[in-house]
């Protein structure tokens, strides 16, 4: 273990691969060349473009599936994903073991895979571990060490050659026999397929799996058939009712509504809301309520945004239609309205982790945003934040695009100051995911804390009637309510169950297994 620039102990070597410790934001300078995908030849593929293979098992065999390989999937089918569970059932049936699974995210539906983690079909997961899979990793029973990467870092790791994908198995709600694919139509329509871009560009073998085969050409081709080895048709990719997320409901919680109101007022009072501004808001309950409040303020002030970043929802689409934003730059669609708008409206533009998030590129969109509103599981009194573990040490969430978004000009975290009896403003975050220098504002129902590094923001907000407070002040109040400072979680500091990468591929923190196991 070595202490990194954030003061966190991190392993030097993970799953047999040497690691670089976090060196501070912008501290690590990459050198060398990007990864090189294998050269293919048209001579290996049918000239009529028909790459359909009878079954997923056949396609995997044709791709040379072997134990120890890295297999990637994308998460656009979210909790409705049937394909990934079917994929590992198939791999198990073929007697292959020790797979490194490289998903762009996992969902509770993937609890099915715990049996394969237990029996060794899957060696370890490099990707978000949500809910049940996170609990499994926290129990210390995963054979390898889990690696958490943000959406941008997942792209970066493949691009930089840190992760080599042997086989990408990509769910395609619409595809033609050549392998052109998108997520806009078909029974499992999910919106953009941007998270599969790096897989289709860099994997040795790319298998497109669809339940909605269309005649060539399948347009737009979010995945280009020229990168695809085989196309498999199955009955159903996913459960449509769970593909569109359930998070697009506006919160009814009074405290969360208050937080949303505070954020909207902050953005207005700090002068961030002005003609031509840009913003990213996700689909969480607070985010949607914030967006509605901001929308009213924009209308009242006659202000239009130049662009807003998705994940898109009907609320964002309404703003586009009403002319309150000129563009939506969208990485994922959270509801049917988002999917329909992306398919129909040229001002609703498909993006990928390459354009939006990749830190090892020549810039990205995330840092150009005027403001972003994100959540967190914990923040500490020094403005560091955690988004993957809870204060009891359990790993329960992935990073998503969270770290990538921290580079916005004003990064706002919306967090309740307590969840039941759990204080959210802690002395030291259980897991460091976001360094304080990138976190500008923390909004709770008790008030708004502005990072002292942002003297400019403090000055701009000085005339506002908003309750600007210090984090320690709010923490003291919450500790009194909760009956004092909580005990430290009991963790096994000899067993690192997973690590958290920073956007440049360095190691930001370690996630220890729970001590009771």
């Amino acid at each position: 273990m070595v202490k990194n620039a954030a003061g966190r102990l991190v392993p030097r070597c993970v799953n047999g691969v040497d690691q670089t410790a976090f060196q501070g934001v912008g501290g690590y300078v990459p050198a060398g060349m990007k990864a090189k995908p294998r050269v293919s030849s048209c001579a290996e593929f049918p000239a009529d473009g028909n790459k359909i293979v009878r079954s997923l098992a056949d396609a995997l065999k044709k791709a040379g599936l072997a134990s120890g390989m890295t297999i990637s999937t994308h998460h656009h089918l979210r909790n409705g994903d049937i394909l990934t569970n079917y994929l590992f059932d198939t791999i198990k049936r073929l007697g292959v073991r020790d797979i490194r699974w490289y998903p762009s995210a996992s969902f509770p539906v993937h609890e099915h895979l715990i049996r394969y983690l237990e029996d060794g079909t899957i060696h370890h997961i490099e990707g978000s571990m949500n809910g049940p899979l996170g609990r499994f990793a926290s129990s210390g029973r995963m054979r390898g060490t889990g690696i958490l990467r943000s959406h941008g870092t997942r792209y970066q790791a493949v691009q930089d050659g840190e992760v080599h994908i042997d086989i990408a198995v990509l769910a395609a709600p619409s595809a033609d026999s050549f392998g052109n694919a998108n997520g806009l139509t078909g029974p499992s329509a999910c919106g953009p397929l941007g998270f599969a871009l790096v897989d289709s560009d860099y994997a040795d073998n790319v298998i497109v799996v669809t339940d909605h085969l269309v005649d060539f050409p399948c347009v737009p081709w979010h995945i280009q058939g020229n990168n695809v080895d085989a196309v498999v048709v199955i009955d159903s990719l996913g459960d449509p009712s769970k593909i569109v997320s359930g998070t697009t409901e506006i919160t009814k919680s009074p405290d969360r509504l208050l937080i949303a109101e505070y954020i909207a007022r902050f953005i207005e009072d700090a002068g961030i809301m002005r003609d031509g501004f840009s913003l990213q808001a996700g689909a969480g309950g607070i985010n949607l309520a914030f967006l509605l409040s901001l929308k009213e303020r924009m209308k009242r002030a006659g202000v239009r945004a130049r662009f807003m970043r998705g994940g898109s929802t009907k609320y964002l689409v309404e703003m586009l239609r009403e002319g309150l934003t000129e563009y939506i730059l969208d990485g994922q669609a959270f509801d049917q309205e988002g999917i329909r708008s992306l398919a129909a409206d040229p001002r609703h533009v498909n993006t990928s982790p390459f354009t939006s998030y990749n830190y090892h590129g020549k810039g990205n969109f995330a840092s150009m945003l005027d403001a972003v509103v994100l959540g967190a599981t914990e923040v500490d009194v020094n403005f560091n934040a955690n988004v993957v573990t809870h204060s009891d040490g359990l790993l329960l969430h992935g990073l998503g695009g969270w770290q990538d978004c921290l580079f916005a000009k004003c990064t706002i975290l919306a967090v309740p100051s307590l969840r039941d009896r759990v204080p959210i403003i802690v002395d030291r975050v259980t897991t460091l995911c976001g360094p304080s220098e990138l976190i500008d504002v923390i909004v709770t129902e008790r008030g708004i804390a502005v990072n002292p590094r942002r003297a400019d923001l403090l000055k701009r907000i000085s005339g506002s009637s908003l309750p600007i407070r210090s984090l320690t002040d709010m923490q003291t109040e919450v500790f009194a309510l909760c009956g004092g400072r909580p005990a430290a979680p009991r963790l096994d500091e000899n067993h690192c169950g997973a690590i958290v990468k920073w956007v440049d591929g360095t190691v930001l923190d370690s996630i220890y297994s729970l001590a009771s196991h």
Partner: protein
Amino acid sequence: MNTRAQGAAGRNDAGSRSDCYVEVAITRRSGITIDLTSKVEALYGDSIRLLVNDVLHTIGIAHARVSMLDQGAVPFVIAARVEAAAARALGGSCRPYPTPVLTKPNTTDRHRLRRTRLYLPGNEPRFFLNAGLHAPDGLILDLEDSVAPAEKDAARILVRNALRAVDFNGAERMVRINAGAMGLDDLREVIPQGVHVILIPKCESAADVASVAHAISSICAETDRNDPVYLLPIIESARGVVNAFGIASASDTICGLAIGLEDYCADIGVQRTREGKESAYARAAIVNAACAAGVQPLDSVFSDVTDMPALLVHARESKALGFKGMGCIHPRQIGVIHDAFAPTQQEIEKAQRIVRAFESAKEARSGVTVLDGRMIDMPVVLQALRTLTLAVSLGLVSAIRNSAGSSRRVSNEDRKDDAHAE
């Protein structure tokens, strides 16, 4: 270890966040054993066990088996649930456990603003902690309609603890007691805990007020409480409407008169509608009776918590009828009602012109205020001053013209003369 008596309290179902379920089985020996399953075991497990022990020892129980399912309840809630379970085991009552006082001192005033009063169900602790952050003028811990009959005892303990542990963030501390004899039991728990206003439900006569006022004075005398406890009778029946003036003037601690329209409409056998024609008489009668008695007329709640535009319309009407505030059943209603009851720009400007005319008349030592060639009566001047005082306190105008001091003096006089002037 045979069990002598047992009792249970609290909740453990899907909706029971921030609560806990406790079973206390009193035994003959072996001390206290605690079987705890808690959502926050890692963070507060040890502290919960210490608290449970402390509560039982204070109550005077030395031997018991405690089984507890905790959904993240804070200490004052755990203490209330353990005490309620123990009291039930002991046949109904036990020595109270004094949960630590965490509230900041907070005083009130008979004439303070009461634009919004937010109802919190008395047996649902998850709403308590942050209610004050939504900045209503008053927070009501409700022991009446929102509490199931079988839970009245548990709610009373929970509300008593909440009055000690929850910071109301400057909101007036209100409790709605039960009607009749049960209400007098409620008073014994809450009056010593610094409650500011007691809401008397289903009030039908001056005698209803008198019995509550009498009970409060004796509890205050027993517990050395010297500051006043104000009363807010709620009229919820045809009979109550008829007796409204008698009720509003039944005690000099009455600060307002409220109407409860759900029950009133049921009493006269009609459906409550959004337009409210069916209660036009009752509402007007309440406003008139309250003004005659020199107390604040306060309107009922608006039941649709999702329709904010309709709430705004309703609240503006309510203000136009003469009410000084409304009840709220969701915090998001608070801001809308405050906006509706704030003086409009037009009202402020008119009030400023009247006050200016009044002050020039004073400077000219003329007894008659004249504006635009018309004589202005004193009650109108006083009303204008009240509008301006409210506008200043809401930050709608920076200060009243000339010195703030002089206007405050006038406005104090105006208060004394309130009943007289109106």
